[in-house]
């Protein structure tokens, strides 16, 4: 450990403490990366090579797994299903949550705090508790195995947290701006669309990314409400893919890798907002 008493030691000097720290960080990074390394290199190996050379780099890299995985077009169909469900459920959730959050943050009315607290309480309720009544309900209104059934469920599950996050953000819109809008004769609606929403863009982007990743990765609802292959999402499809090709490890890894790509793109594009979203509410 770097003894504080030795502050006079030159900055660049290698102390035992810094070696220890570097070693610890190296170790954790290796632990973090090894499974990902395995995922990528295995997808480039033939089944034969995988059996002979589990950990090494592929000696004869091949793309045969990729063409095999894509061959029947199901991965692409699943990806499309995930995209539709994610896009629409996040859109619905964002719109209705923003409306509600605006009322909670900027209006005075009876029952406001109680209602807001009811929404916040619902953040932590595990979806599995609702799943049986929901399933019966969806069967009765013929929405099982349809996009819209899943979209409504996902939107409903995301709304409590979304309202919480946006309410907190809308509260930070300076009163003077709202007041000046009112003095200028703007309606509430106009203040919302012309002032509050544009000022809240960062929070909205954060919310959209966090919610989109949630839906994209969700499995419980997807397995239950989108059982038919024509509407199956990518993650549910991956579990099916894994079951079907359980003897062909490189092919499974290829499917897993393909399923990861869209998310990594979203993450890299919105990294800033994503991390902010994670920290939102945590750092006061």
């Amino acid at each position, binding site marked *: *450990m770097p*003894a*504080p008493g030795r502050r006079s030691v030159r900055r660049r000097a290698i102390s035992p403490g810094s070696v220890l*720290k570097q070693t610890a*960080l190296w170790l*954790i*990074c290796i632990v*973090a990366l090894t*499974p*990902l390394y395995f995922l990528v290199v295995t997808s480039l190996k033939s089944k034969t090579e995988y059996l002979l050379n*589990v*950990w090494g780099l592929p000696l004869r890299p091949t793309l045969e797994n990729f063409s095999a995985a894509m061959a029947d077009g199901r991965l692409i169909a699943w990806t499309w299903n995930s995209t539709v469900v994610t896009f629409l459920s996040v859109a619905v959730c964002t719109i*209705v949550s923003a409306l*509600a959050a605006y*009322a*909670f943050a900027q209006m*005075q*009315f*009876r*029952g*406001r705090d109680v209602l807001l607290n009811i*929404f*916040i*309480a*619902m953040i*932590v*309720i*595990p979806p*599995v*508790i*609702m*799943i*049986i*009544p*929901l*399933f019966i*309900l969806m069967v009765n209104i013929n929405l099982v195995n349809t996009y819209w059934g899943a979209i409504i469920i996902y939107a*409903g*599950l995301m709304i409590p947290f979304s309202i919480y996050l946006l*309410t907190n953000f809308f*509260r930070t819109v300076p009163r003077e701006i709202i*007041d000046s809008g*009112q003095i200028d004769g703007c309606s*509430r609606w106009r203040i919302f669309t012309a002032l509050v929403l544009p000022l809240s863009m960062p929070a909205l982007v954060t919310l959209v990314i966090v919610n989109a990743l949630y839906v994209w*990765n969700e*499995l419980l609802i997807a397995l239950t409400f989108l059982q038919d292959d024509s509407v199956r999402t990518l*993650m549910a499809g*991956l579990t099916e893919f894994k079951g079907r090709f359980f003897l062909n*490890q490189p092919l*499974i890894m290829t*499917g*897993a890798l393909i*399923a*990861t790509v869209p998310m990594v793109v979203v993450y890299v594009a919105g990294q800033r907002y994503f*991390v902010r979203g*994670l*920290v939102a509410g*945590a*750092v*006061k």
Partner: protein
Amino acid sequence: MDRRGHLTGKSSVPDATVIDGAARGLPISRRAQRRRAGDALMPYLYILPAALIVGLVIVYPLVDVFQASTQTLSAGASQYVGGANYDLVRTDPVFWQAVRDNATLLLAVPILVVLSLLFAVLLFERVRGWRIYRTLIFLPYIMAITVIGTVFGLLYEFDGPLNVALRGLHLNWLALDWLGNANLAIPSVMSVIIWRELGFGTILFLARLMSVREELFEAARLDGANWWQVQWHITVPQLRTVIEFFIIIEIINMMSGVFNYIYVMTSGGPGFASQVLEFYIWQNAFAFRQGGIAAAAAVLLLGVTVVFVFLQFRVRRGGTVADE
């Protein structure tokens, strides 16, 4: 949809007297609000769409699950059976296995807190290359659990890559059947959860650390505190609220957010050795067609959830109580 009215019906009571712009010291907006009585309804209209969807997806099922738990649900016909489902759950060893497994997973929480703190502190000290380390440590957290579970499911196979490596290192005694051994399945799943959540904890703590005033650390060092003392007397107290937040989030996670791991890695097995409540409920409902039993277990889980609600209000109070 009568039950939904509980939410929306209550909220549509217009009452101009409660409009209270003055509380915020805003006479202008108050007068403007009073001018039109129709305004009093407006807030409820803004909330209505969200309330309708949540009413349908969360509130109605929460009420209905109680009813479902007192019935046998099979092939469309349902029959009232009173507390019979609860008796079946109570005497089902698999249910208790699930409770035990959830409890075991809670052990991951202290491990996560300690490791996350450690790596957040190391990164915060700007060790050379800390930005790269930060990115790499966070990488597991952005992976989908289904993908992670698929990868680890393979790595942990008895003749899989992990054991190949261990045997290669002449550690044959350590090359265990990680997911196939009833005693090891849950610890193995736990290791994967820790692997992923560590990135979240580290980033969370690091973000908070960066907003701590540098002078605090400086002052402690000047007072002759050693590394451990600085962490114990400055870092931990400064991070108290965010540590609390993380602990509560992870407790909730271990109790109600691990279905994916189980489904992908063990399917609840071997036998019924790696159950968690979520999986138990889902399996009874959709694999065993025992909707009544599943509903009863869901009601019991809801009881635990009430504790979560209190816990999360504790950490979210900053957001709910007006934070001006």
